[in-house]
């Protein structure tokens, strides 16, 4: 009972810290006048016979009206009350977020945190992995790795990025078995370690492995510089609790970093560790003979701001002016020496709310990301499916 409580508290703490960390590089506080928002055209829902796309939003919801759970509770996600903003036509949103907060994780000496099997409203964990949409008679196995955005914070089980990729492949007549290895706060290296634990661990070998990185990796770079860390040799993980942040600070050899060097150090920290992780995962892919792709994800400060984002900036107490991190992200990616595919611009032309915090999106956002991933993966998936069938 005690252990259960501790685990529950740990998972609440873990999840609630992620949003704050994702926005750790963002500063500045100003208010702006409410914008006039022009919702963009969003896809209409398909028929009941095909995978369901998110309902379009014709209006922009209130940024301040809290969504209540079925029990009548107000849900806060990292101190941000879940409101109608970005959750229009998502009446389940409050219950979903409550389930995400309640979803238990266990401590792991090596991986830091592992989701525990559980069954909650819209959030189900089996064998330590978030449940995904499963087409019948899958022919290829696709494993997905990443942080909370891959895990699906903001989406129901069957609307997460892996689920949508599976749905899109199904529309093309290819049944894939997606496995969602995403875990909140995972940086790329950690996700790669998760891959090393998975291969040879009793599961059928994957045909394709997808990594979806960026937010936590750049956030870690910011965090390391903030802590005065100039040791580039050791790999580090994103601390996700107060205790871990204390430990992070206590176990860092602190150096004074001049203001003008901070950006360069942030880039170097993120790029070097990311590059090393990608190299390692390629080594594993070669040995276990599967294809591997790395994507560099979007987050709020890589998006071209739209008026639809203004309520979010107000919610986050942020001034969008000068927050543009696209250049830094591009430099980080370049410095990593990898050929990760940059999809950080996926929301640039979207005129409706997708983010409800600095990195997590609603189901529409997950759908758009998955569509972009699938564009890049389509030919691989088709080839792999053909090879498998033949």
């Amino acid at each position: 009972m005690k252990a259960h409580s501790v685990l529950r508290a740990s998972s609440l703490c873990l999840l609630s810290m992620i949003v704050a960390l994702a926005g750790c590089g963002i500063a500045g506080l100003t208010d702006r006048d409410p914008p006039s928002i022009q919702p963009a055209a969003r896809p209409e829902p398909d028929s009941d016979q095909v995978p369901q796309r998110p309902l379009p939003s014709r209006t922009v919801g209130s940024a301040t009206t809290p969504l209540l759970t079925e029990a009548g509770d107000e849900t806060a996600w990292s101190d941000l009350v879940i409101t109608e903003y970005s959750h229009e036509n998502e009446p389940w949103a409050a219950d979903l977020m409550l389930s995400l907060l309640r979803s238990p994780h266990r401590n792991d000496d090596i991986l830091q945190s592992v989701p525990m099997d559980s069954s909650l409203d819209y959030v189900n964990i089996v064998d330590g992995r978030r449940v995904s949409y499963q087409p019948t008679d899958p022919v290829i196995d696709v494993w997905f790795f990443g942080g909370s955005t891959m895990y699906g914070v903001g989406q129901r089980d069957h609307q997460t990025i892996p689920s949508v990729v599976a749905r899109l492949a199904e529309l093309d007549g290819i049944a894939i078995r997606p496995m969602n290895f995403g875990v909140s706060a995972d940086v790329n290296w950690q996700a790669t370690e998760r891959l090393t634990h998975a291969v040879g661990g009793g599961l059928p070998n994957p045909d394709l492995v997808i990594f979806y990185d960026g937010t936590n990796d750049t956030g870690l770079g910011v965090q390391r510089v903030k802590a005065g860390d100039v040791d580039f040799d050791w790999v580090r993980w994103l601390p996700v609790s107060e205790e871990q942040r204390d430990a992070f600070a206590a176990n860092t050899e602190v150096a004074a970093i001049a203001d003008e060097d901070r950006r360069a150090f942030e880039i170097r920290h993120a790029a070097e560790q990311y590059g090393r992780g990608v190299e390692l995962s390629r080594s594993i892919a070669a040995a276990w003979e599967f294809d591997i792709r790395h994507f560099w994800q979007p987050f709020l400060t890589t998006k071209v701001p739209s008026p639809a984002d203004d309520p979010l900036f107000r919610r986050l107490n942020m001034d969008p002016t000068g927050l543009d991190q696209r250049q830094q992200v591009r430099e980080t990616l370049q410095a990593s020496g990898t050929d990760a595919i940059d999809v950080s611009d996926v929301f640039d032309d979207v005129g409706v709310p997708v983010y409800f915090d600095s990195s997590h999106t609603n189901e529409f956002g997950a759908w758009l990301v998955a569509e972009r991933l699938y564009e890049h993966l389509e030919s691989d998936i088709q080839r792999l499916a053909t090879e498998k069938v033949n």
Partner: protein
Amino acid sequence: MVSVRAKRSSRLEALRAVVPVVLVQLAAAAWFFWREHLRLPILICILAGVAALTALLLPKLFLWVHHRLFALGAVAGAALARVFLGLAALFLVLPAWAWQRVGGGGAILGNRRQSGWQRARLNEPYHPGGTEPNAKPFTAGTSSRLVVAATVVLGALYLIAPSGLGLVRRLGDFKADSVEVAVVEEQTGPDRVSQEAPFINEDGVAIDGSGNVIEIVGLPVDGYAHEGEPFAPLLFREHKGVRSTPDPVLGSRLNDFAGTHLNIADGRRASYEQSLPSVAVVWFFGGSTMFGIGQRDEHTIPSVVARLAEEDGIRIQPVNFGVSGDNNWIATERFEQAITRDDLPRPNLVVFYDGTNEITGESFLVDIGAANSGAITRLTLSDEERLRRREEVQGRTSLSMEESAARAGSQYRRGVTLARAHGDWFDVPVLHFWQPVAVSRAPSASDDGLFDRIALSRQGAETSRAEYEMLFDHTDVGAIDISDAMDVSDEPIYFDWSHHNELGARLVGDAMYRHIRDRFGLDE
């Protein structure tokens, strides 16, 4: 994480330390209050409050001050003890003895014929002399109070002085921020029983009356297995001084250290260096046995291999990545971090040396009743970790010896496969060696002393040997078995379940080198 636990531990330690301080202060305040002093009790209470608050809010500061005051107090106490002893001998004991010798007697030293307190007669007071009803009842006069007080003080000082002196010796290297001794609290085998030692301080270091380290976290340091090794006490003192930093990925990483026999730079133990430039770099990974607990820098296994290669005209540069507590999986992760670094010269060969931490880790899992979940585990590094892991187990699972060996063997196999995959990718050959442990050695009379020390019967040793062999059988991944490397000698080698002297390192290095030399174009 570990650091946070250490922080909690600091707070607990501070609270444990402050409780007696506060209790004594409150008692003193009560006594002064009873003696109708008013201001003093208030002042003492304030001090007690400050001490308690400091211990609660600033535990490290409190411990820092506490340790130093305690140490200084011990020094002062020791000095006072000597003064008291001298004064007592000079002014009390000698005159009293002389007085008694010339025919006197009395209460102070007692009556030889009628010593002790006896009830003389009903309704009469107790008499020290016993049988003389008219004798003046014993009342504590000035001299007797002095004797009683001196006795109490001397007794107290006698009790605390050794601890105080030990702390004084530690003053120089006491660091409140340091978290873990690098010689981690490894479980050293399933049947390991710790030895009793005269004085064991907070770091688990046993120190004899002369200040020599004679045992360190369960590693006895005496003549046994250290014959002809006069450097052993200093070497183990340096082992004790090594610190490590908690690492969320690797468990721990070594801090730099500079000593006479033990040096660490950039997280790696120093090794023998040839005078000529090396032509091949060999990386060595493993736990404490690869790190070289029990050997000087230039006599660790990597150093021995380098020396043997040098004799064959092969100039290799050994790099010792061994860290106490690393099992194969963690060593593999250490390899992953190293091989992806741009600033390290790419190795020509990578060597892993495993076994003891695989079976030790598995023994712990069996002990706590952990189910076979397929999860990768590392060796627990502290009592706190072990306690946490024990508490996390939900429902005890009992595994047979075969199932247990299969679990540990499976993890080892996965680690080896992973390391080899990286070796292929980075174009570096990787070799895995299965190490010897005390019970894997062919029975030898020279080990009788060892088994006595670790309280392991011959039958228990046979059982452990069977477990170890079964585990190796289950690894089934082609690791090179050199667990019989010590069989060629009849000398004492091990000083505990797995750690050995420099002779042992020479034998292992020799066995290892015979498999390595062909990598450099020399056949066995």
